[in-house]
């Protein structure tokens, strides 16, 4: 009996001991002789971006002997939990690549620091290479908090040229009523008129927000601090969705089909039109022989919202930020500066064409011209960003979004009237929002 107890104690001790040993091994090595370590967390992105982000980071690492980069990629879905946990544990990376929409929350929590505070001159210098509207997208309370590499814009409409021709149309729809008519006439046994998405995925909501902003809607009134997504601008945009669903002209079911399914339906010829963001054109279509085009989403017949019409909403989803826990903010900023150079910045436009690039030079590239002639044209005319504003962005926006998503689903499902659904959600959202003040 004694023998057994002894044996067990020994094994347990062995286990404990080896665990302790391993833990000691796991300790991170300290910086060696002047070499500064910069840790980078990249969150999400298209596969192509993921690929070249890593490749060019390696290049920077090799070119700079005094800086050692530890680069890690995470898929976008765990972005917030990873950043919060890392911050709470004092273990966050020096550089995080996250969304522009995150900036107010992260800045409010002092997770990230203003870049101008590290080296104002350098940061201002980036402007020379960058489209000013995009450069300004990451400004918050007068400070530059991140380096944006591109923006996504909403709303856009993709349309199948063959299907439109078949139905007797020689141009895409220009107004909401035309859109409804098109969608109806484009619906056949083979395919639906249009793919729209109303799941709770943030992207789906951003698209609808873009449509509402087109109609003079706003999410929040900056001056009064009121949540106003229950105003007429939003209500009528949501009405458009409800009308399309009620008319039975949508592909699949907007409540269960998110933007990925919408993309697939359109690419597979199961929908004649598709509402999306500027990334409408992504590599997954490369093997499709679809004859299609894309335009900014049709405009309301009559603007009903109370606020100035915004032609588009935009958000950089790969903005480089420097955290407050960084021990080498200067070295981290050099890494950002590397990405601010045209050589790197024009990767958007040169390799990845699914984004609206931040580099001025990108708009001179043949590949971008080929895929997005309209963008390049309006960029050269100086109108690409006319009336474009950022996606709803304020301290606490992520906590308000699920409520808005509920309202949309309640309305589309017909559980509640549109106004009632939006009012209910707005009052809950207002409570959440007020907490933050």
């Amino acid at each position, binding site marked *: 009996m004694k023998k057994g107890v002894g044996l067990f104690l020994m094994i*347990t001790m062995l286990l404990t001991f080896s665990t302790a040993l391993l833990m000691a091994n796991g300790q991170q090595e300290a910086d060696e002789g002047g070499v500064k370590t910069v840790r980078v967390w990249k969150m999400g992105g298209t596969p192509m971006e993921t690929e070249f982000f890593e490749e060019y980071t390696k290049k920077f690492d090799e070119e700079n002997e005094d800086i050692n980069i530890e680069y890690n990629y995470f898929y976008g879905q765990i972005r917030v939990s990873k950043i919060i946990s890392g911050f709470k544990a004092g273990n966050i990376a020096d550089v995080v690549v996250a969304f522009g929409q995150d900036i107010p929350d992260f800045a409010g929590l002092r997770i990230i620091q203003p870049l101008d505070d590290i080296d104002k001159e350098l940061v201002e210098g980036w402007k020379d290479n960058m489209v000013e509207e995009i450069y300004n997208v990451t400004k918050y309370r007068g400070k530059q908090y991140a380096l944006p590499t591109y923006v996504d814009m909403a709303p856009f409409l993709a349309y199948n040229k063959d299907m439109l021709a078949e139905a007797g149309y020689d141009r895409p729809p220009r107004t909401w009523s035309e859109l409804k008519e098109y969608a109806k006439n484009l619906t056949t046994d083979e395919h639906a008129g249009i793919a729209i998405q109303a799941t709770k995925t943030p992207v789906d909501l951003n698209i609808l927000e873009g449509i509402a902003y087109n109609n003079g809607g706003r999410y929040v009134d900056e001056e009064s601090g009121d949540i106003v997504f229950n105003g007429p601008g939003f209500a009528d945009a949501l009405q458009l969705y409800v009308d399309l669903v009620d008319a039975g002209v949508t592909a699949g079911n907007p*409540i*269960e089909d998110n933007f990925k399914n919408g993309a697939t339906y359109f690419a597979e010829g199961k929908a004649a039109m598709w509402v999306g963001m500027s990334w409408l054109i992504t590599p997954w279509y490369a093997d499709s022989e679809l004859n299609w085009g894309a335009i900014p989403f049709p405009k309301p017949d009559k603007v009903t919202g109370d606020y100035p019409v915004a032609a588009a909403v935009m958000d950089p989803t790969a903005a480089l930020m420097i955290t407050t826990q960084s021990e080498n903010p200067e070295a981290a900023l050099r890494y950002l500066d590397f990405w601010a150079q045209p050589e790197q910045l024009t990767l958007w436009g040169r390799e990845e064409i699914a984004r609206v690039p931040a580099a001025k030079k990108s708009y001179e590239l043949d590949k971008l011209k080929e895929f997005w002639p309209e963008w390049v044209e309006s960029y050269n005319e100086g109108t690409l960003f006319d009336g474009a504003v950022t996606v709803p962005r304020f301290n606490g926006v992520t906590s308000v979004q*699920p409520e808005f998503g*509920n309202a949309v*689903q309640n309305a589309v*499902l017909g559980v509640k009237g549109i106004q009632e659904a939006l009012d209910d959600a707005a009052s809950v959202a207002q409570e959440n929002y007020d907490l933050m003040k």
Partner: protein
Amino acid sequence: MGKKTYIPFVLIGPVYLLIMLFIAYPVIEIIRISFTSWHFLIPNSDVFVGFETYKAVLNDPLLIKIIWRTILWMLMGTAFSLLLGLAIGYFLSFDYPINRVLRAVIILPWILPPVVTATIWQWMLNGKYGVINDILVRMHLIPEGVPWLAQLSTAFIAVNMVLVWKNVPLVSLLLSAAFQGVPEDMLEAAKIDGANGWQRFWRIVFPYIKGIFSSVAVIVSIWCIQQFTIIWIATQGGPANATHILPTYIYQMFSQNYQFGKLGVLSIFNLLILVITAIVYLRLFRKQH
């Protein structure tokens, strides 16, 4: 062997310490934050407020609804998993030729990571292109395709059935291992008594595995609540909150709402539901020592 001895403590002690060392801190931390009004975005909100946050939660009709739905979710999921698992597990414990095939394939649903499970079922339950609808329509059970995950009346049940599908294999396997421990001579004796299969099962076989059955019941209840990934990927708690249960809502609080105080309170409720369930099962089924 009921004599007083230090041996069990020596055997259990180290393991117990290891577990407590790791789990005590999270538990204490959660209890602590449930008594604060901590909102991650609000500085200095991590302060003791007594039962204020509890009151706030109990006054929120949505949260009350979610708490009830969690209980329903667990009861439904557990009942179906156990019923199917009991039948399949008993079946598996016999030496039928077909069981060779069955034993080889039954574990597959459990092997798949939850992300894949949720994605497949999303695809299979799709209102238009889903194969489940196609089969049901062909069998004339429904006139036309139903968007199972996209309407209020069916979404909850549909996701719950996905969970059951994932749970059944391991429940069956655990119970079949238990059934295989039933001594042959007891069965023989029962046969001679002239008991039929059904009677044999309830009078002799089931009482014998009651202990394991109760353990499995507790474990399945825990799984039902812990496997929130399936809901999160399939519906994100939608449509219109219809499939939110406590863990999905807590996840939303963690990653979107940042209301950590409420997160603590909801975690405590989640814990209470499971503790009460466990005690009930143990009272019902545990062998009396």
